[in-house]
């Protein structure tokens, strides 16, 4: 089993090495990176390329580790006992399986995505230490041990809102997806829109990387935003010439709403664009 990237996902060399190491050693891999660099996508693509089932577990601030294993529904059981339901005799009827349990039960080696682990409480990763290490856990209510039939490929994403505990990190591989350089970016766009006009791409790229370089911008546009923007440009059939526009009245690139997501950034950008154009004119 080796991950080589897919027709719809460009994986850099270092990412491939990290993912393959995690697959071979059957250990979780933590993926960090700027928002929109394809962290969550990675898990889906790994599953696709290995032809494995994907089980996603989205983490929220209220998520507890136990919920990933199983939940015991005491309230329903209490009600059923009052109503004299037959089901009440078997405790198994009230245990609902969590994502980890599902993953452990799978016949074929699945991909388990634990998305945005940093959203949860600081203790959350520690509570899953043993479960992810040994790939087994104990169900107290029924006294059975659930052991993984096939150790799932665990991909964990983090947005760096909280530091993860050392003990947890030590057991994982780590990869930081850095922002793609223009060459990789070209491949990524190619994969998404194979028939986009070459000159449009070039002009769009220039604007995109220029915007990312604007000092003091609060939210830098990311890959996914570039892809959206290109899509808009294509649907509107914007000509590359318009992107090359030097008219000071049309300073802001068309459909910039897809790239700049907050009004301070738009103001800042307008101001800077104005200054730079004015300088250009002076030179001319």
């Amino acid at each position: 089993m080796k991950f080589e990237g897919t027709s719809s996902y460009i994986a850099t060399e270092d990412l491939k090495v990290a993912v393959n190491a995690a697959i071979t050693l059957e250990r979780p891999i933590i993926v960090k990176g700027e928002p929109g660099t394809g962290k969550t996508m990675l898990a889906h693509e790994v599953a696709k390329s290995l032809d494995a089932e994907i089980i996603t577990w989205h983490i929220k601030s209220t998520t507890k580790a136990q919920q990933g294993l199983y939940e015991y529904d005491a309230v329903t059981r209490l009600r059923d006992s009052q109503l004299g339901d037959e089901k009440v005799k078997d405790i198994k009827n009230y245990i609902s399986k969590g994502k980890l349990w599902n993953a452990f039960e799978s016949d074929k080696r699945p991909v388990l995505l634990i998305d945005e682990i940093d959203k949860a409480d600081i203790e959350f990763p520690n509570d899953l230490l043993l479960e992810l290490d040994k790939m087994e856990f104990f169900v107290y209510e029924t006294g059975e041990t659930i052991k993984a039939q096939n150790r799932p490929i665990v991909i964990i994403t983090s947005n760096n809102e909280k530091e993860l505990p050392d003990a947890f990190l030590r057991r994982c591989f780590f990869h930081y997806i850095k922002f793609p350089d223009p060459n990789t970016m070209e491949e990524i766009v190619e994969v998404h829109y194979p028939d986009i006009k070459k000159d449009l791409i070039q002009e769009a790229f220039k604007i995109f990387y220029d915007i990312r370089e604007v000092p003091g911008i609060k939210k830098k546009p990311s890959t996914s935003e570039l892809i959206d923007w290109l899509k808009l440009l294509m649907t509107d059939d914007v000509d590359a010439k318009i992107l090359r526009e030097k008219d000071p009245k049309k300073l802001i690139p068309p459909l910039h709403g897809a790239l700049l997501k907050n009004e301070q950034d738009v103001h800042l950008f307008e101001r800077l664009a104005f200054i730079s154009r004015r300088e250009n004119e002076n030179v001319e």
Partner: protein
Amino acid sequence: MFINFFFDLKQASLPVSLKEYLMLMEAMNKRVVDSFNVNDFYYLSRSALVKDERYLDKFDRVFGHSFKGLENPEGETIKEIPEEWLKLMGQKYLTDEEKKMIESLGGWDKLMETLKQRLEEQKKRHQGGSKWIGTGGTSPFGAYGYNPEGIRIGQKEGKNKKAVKVWDKREFSNLDGDVELGTRNIKIALRRLRKFAREGAETELDLDNTIKSTAHKGYIDVKMMPERRNKIKVLLFFDVGGSMDAHVKICEELFSAARTEFKHMEYFYYHNCLYDAVWKDNNRRYNDNIKTWDVLHTYPSDYKVIFVGDAEMSPYEITYPGGSVEFWNEESGETWLTRMLNVYENAIWLNPIPERYWDRIASTSIIKQIFSDRMFPLTIEGIDQAMRELNK
């Protein structure tokens, strides 16, 4: 060889453990990557040993140091490109017009000679500008430039013919470098500070909600709520004397106003850089000083440390023993700062000087590096980010 590398990493105080090293060995053993390819080994070891992007740059530096001279035979450095080879290539690819341009510069030999000289003079990677070899400039040497008679080095590089080694690119060197400047407003800063101090993960019994819920459901339903207790403990270090005094005053007011929000708050003064002693009363600083060792031993490592200072001084004051302007320090400021950072994991530096000047001041860059980029401007945005960093 690998053991040495591991100890080099330890030496550079990267948080690597035996478990991770064994993991790397296991991966090598299972042939995750082709073990004869240094690049792959670099990727693998990075993924196994580094667990926080903050350390990536440090790792790159140690890797480069430990495996110097071990790179692929194909991974030639710029200096090793044979002259004839370039000459032949030039004849093959240059247009007649471009060849004429070379002649106008004094001929091919002259150009090569200058290139050699420049290579000798220049030890660092360079970008922009008009003299040095690098990228994006107008110098005749380097890639992506505007000079038509330039020698293009490494512009269209093949996969195995990288002129610069991957780890030498230091791509992660400014991972968290962009901090915003905002308006100065002490009230908002205070609110941010309070928010920081009042976050807690522990839970306590929510009595009202439990009673309500129990009545509603007909059985005892215990409700918990997050405990809002002040559990943040802070050590503050203020730079006093000289240009910093006005800023320190603002800062002191700010933190005293937020004082009730912290479980413990201790403050100390230092001058320019941290050395073997700090003091609490500025008037009696020469009599009543406190040994820095005592500070390190008194306050446990769960304290959060905030340095406030402009970090503007002569670089010697940080890097050399005896560099202090006031007395003879046995050990360098860097040693003391590193010691401090080794004890207190959550430490940041607040700098009242606007961020855009930091890179131009050598000492500020050094301290920023010592703090692994955890230096923030003394603005709302900066304080906000600093507190977020401390809360991690």
